[in-house]
């Protein structure tokens, strides 16, 4: 796994021109603030909750504090994600596909396939070496292969979702789950518990199921980048995907933030054009 990094060490203390990207996902809201040099100078991630506008405002306040600046310095702002129309500070919107592509290309400027695993949807986006999209896929209608699937399975196993990542590598004999459907998978999990299977082996099987769903969506080009909340909170899923595709995967420094960062970069571009 290779990490793309942003260098935040040399930036000046106060920025007088800033560009904001807000990604309101079904599960988390993310804000990224960049300066005219395209440097990420502030960010924030919070649970989206039910009041998207309030969450986006709160997130923005945190990110601005981190950037050492304030709202009056915002030159342009773009919102994306499920709640993109609920963001007070935004003057335009872009799709999450476009923003993730932009954010990933910023870290890895080459032809890439982006796998983004979010709370309720997955995306696979293919970019050429100019960063132009050549195609994309979103998951169909259900939760299979998303963060929601992991949450449901953790619930069935009665363990905190944050524990999954450490349990899976301890598996010695993975339990394969056969079903597409989250509810049927939950039944399979219960059945395996009843049959005395080890939790570690079931958890690995759960991750395996997520990766399989992703691999069914599209083919991958040579260089693969993984992003999204599930990737950020479950680095094991990257390891497992690497194992399955037989090559190393690139992960940006803030995997959950690429959409917001892409939105901020669009804001910067819009302002300059």
């Amino acid at each position, binding site marked *: 796994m290779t990490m793309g990094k942003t260098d935040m060490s040399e930036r000046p203390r106060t920025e007088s021109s800033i560009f904001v990207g807000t990604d309101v996902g079904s599960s988390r809201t993310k804000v990224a603030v960049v300066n005219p040099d395209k440097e990420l100078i502030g960010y924030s991630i919070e649970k989206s909750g039910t009041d998207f506008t309030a969450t986006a405002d709160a997130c923005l306040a945190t990110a601005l504090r981190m950037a050492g600046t304030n709202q009056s310095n915002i030159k342009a702002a773009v*919102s994306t994600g*499920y709640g*993109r*129309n*609920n*963001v*007070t500070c*935004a*003057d*335009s*919107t*872009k*799709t*999450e*596909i*476009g923003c993730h592509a932009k954010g990933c290309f910023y870290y890895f400027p080459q032809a890439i396939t982006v796998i983004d695993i979010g709370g309720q*949807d997955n995306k696979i986006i293919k970019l050429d070496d100019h960063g*132009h*999209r*050549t*195609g*994309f896929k*979103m998951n*169909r*209608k259900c939760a299979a292969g998303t963060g929601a699937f992991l949450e449901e399975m953790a619930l069935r196993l009665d363990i905190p979702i944050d524990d999954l990542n450490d349990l899976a590598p301890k598996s010695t004999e993975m339990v394969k789950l056969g079903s597409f459907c989250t509810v049927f998978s939950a039944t399979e999990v219960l059945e395996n518990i009843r049959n005395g299977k080890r939790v570690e082996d079931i958890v690995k099987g759960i991750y395996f199921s997520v990766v399989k769903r992703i691999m069914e969506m599209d083919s991958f080009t040579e260089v693969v980048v993984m992003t999204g909340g599930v990737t950020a909170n479950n680095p094991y899923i990257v390891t497992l995907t690497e194992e399955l595709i037989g090559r190393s995967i690139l992960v940006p420094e803030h995997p959950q933030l690429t959409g917001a960062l892409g939105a901020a970069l669009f804001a910067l571009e819009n302002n300059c054009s």
Partner: protein
Amino acid sequence: MPEEKKVQLKRLNSSKVLGKFMAEYYYELDNAAKTGEKKIAWCTSVGPAEILRALGFLVYFPETHSAMLGSSRMATDLIPKANAVGYSPDICSYLTADIGAYLAKVSPLATIFKGIEGPPKPDVLVFNTNQCRDVQDWFNFYGEEYKVPVVGIHSYVGVQDVTESHVASISKQMKAMIPLLEEVSGKKFDEDKFKEAVALSRECSDLWKDVLDSASAKPSPLTFFDGTTLMGAAVVGRGTKKANDAYRELIAELKDRIANKEGAIENERFRIYWDGMPVWGRLSMHAKLFAGLDTNVLASTYCNSWIFSALDPDDPFDSMARAYTELFIVRADDPKEKYIKDMLNFFKVDGIIYHDAKTCPNNSNCRYGMPQRLEKETGIPSLTLNGDLNDLRLVSDEQMKTNVEAFIEQLEERK
């Protein structure tokens, strides 16, 4: 806060003429059903309507009723009623919506046309499996309910080239149903009337083709969404003079638009080809979504399905057999791909959208690698939308919207 663009859809004036045609059509059927003055045949949308007209039947097409159940958004609540009596939620949602409506004794006809309670009772049901097997099951259900005969043509599927043996077999099946139809109609089959019906159908097909071909103009005077409602007369009225007159008016209006460089949407920047069925319950939403993105979905496999250029009144049976077998839906992937490639060229298309309708595999052409093959050959990008024609439980509006917006962004990057 980002402002969502408000889109006002443009209407074609002649859509009123076609609306009037549809109203008269349903009232005539309703009257016949109530008075018994004329016999009524139910027919599949690409079934042998011309034979039925030659025998004096008024012809009713249940698929149009199902499309109305879809566009009125009644379908989703009715489908479960058919599911409950054994028709799976995975099969044709035209069938399940229509049978559900029958079981619940409701119909959009009753809401739209005052005095009409529902579909006219059939005297006979006539299907052609050229489009799918579901129509046979659908008609058999009503055959039992109404205690009337069901006859049909069993067509070929996945046809590579339409050969003489295909034509001979279908033609023979058509002729074989005539004695029963004569018995039900109480009339002798009249060859001259048959030829006349075939001639009118051919004329209707040519006029409908002119309507659809007008979308090759830049900007296009027509959208796919217009087409899905304007095609009503080509489906239910082919073989009648009235349908043809209605289309003549429409063509004149489209020609005016072309001459004035007036597009069906403001500011046409992208031109899209739609493969598959419409999402009937989302016609207006989708029309607005695309128009708001300066994108015109202007041509489709679906609307073109009612073009029957092989029809020839001098050779009525064989030419009908050929026309109803030559159809896109009946064909193998090779001829289908060639057809789509020709359409992409003719309509000068920037992108293609495949609608993968969960309950109609027959009209969902994206399931065996076609999008990938065509994209590789033509370089024209494609997008697949998962949804359904009638069952809105299978449609995620947000997913569709994001997919469409992202696709148009992708096209923008190429400009």
